[in-house]
């Protein structure tokens, strides 16, 4: 059971480039999330999804897009990378009542925009 898998682990982008951070989970969870963690800061919610085809903005959605075409996958898209998007990105999925409504996190993607 792999849990939540994020790819890539590291990436360096030039300003204005685009990329997609991949996230997949094999626990059949309906809820999925994208967070970013800036150095010395907490986790900020970017977008989340309550199921396939349904997404909603979090605290810091500007500059990002998401889609949820399947239960398993929740990719995060950066269209025009900016230095302010340098951060560590974490994907998470939510177990329901059977697992006490807790979030399961991936190991993160470290992104630098230069």
């Amino acid at each position, binding site marked *: 059971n792999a849990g*939540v898998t994020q790819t890539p682990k590291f990436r360096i982008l030039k300003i204005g480039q685009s990329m997609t951070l991949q996230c997949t989970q094999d626990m059949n969870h309906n*809820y999925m*999330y994208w*967070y970013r963690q800036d150095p*010395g*800061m*907490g*986790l*900020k*919610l970017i977008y*989340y999804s*309550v199921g396939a085809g349904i997404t*909603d903005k*979090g*605290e810091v959605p500007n500059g990002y897009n998401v889609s949820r075409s399947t239960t398993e996958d929740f990719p995060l898209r950066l269209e025009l990378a900016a230095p302010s998007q340098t951060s560590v990105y*974490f994907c*998470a999925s*939510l177990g329901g009542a059977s697992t*006490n*409504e*807790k*979030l*399961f*996190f*991936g*190991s*993160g993607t470290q992104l630098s925009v230069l």
Partner: protein
Amino acid sequence: DQQVKQNSPSLSVQEGRISILNCDYTNSMFDYFLWYKKYPAEGPTFLISISSIKDKNEDGRFTVFLNKSAKHLSLHIVPSQPGDSAVYFCAASAISSGTYKYIFGTGTRLKVLA
């Protein structure tokens, strides 16, 4: 507006003593709270949760206390061990409203001294 606050960025405790990490929230709709531990270069891992219908929850060395009137929760670790050295995050959600939108605090870095 920071809805979940951890006002102590860092905490140092001697091995064997009690560690107390605090968390405050402003949104009275929050009714489910999680604590996570994070090591460098890893994703956060779940520690313990508490529902607003309770004021205390224990799991081994970890106990979470909830004071709804003060909008305050705390995580107690007894006895503290060097392996507990990590960054601790609290998170809150209003799950009774069905959103499962978890907001995280800024974290407290705990250092347990041998």
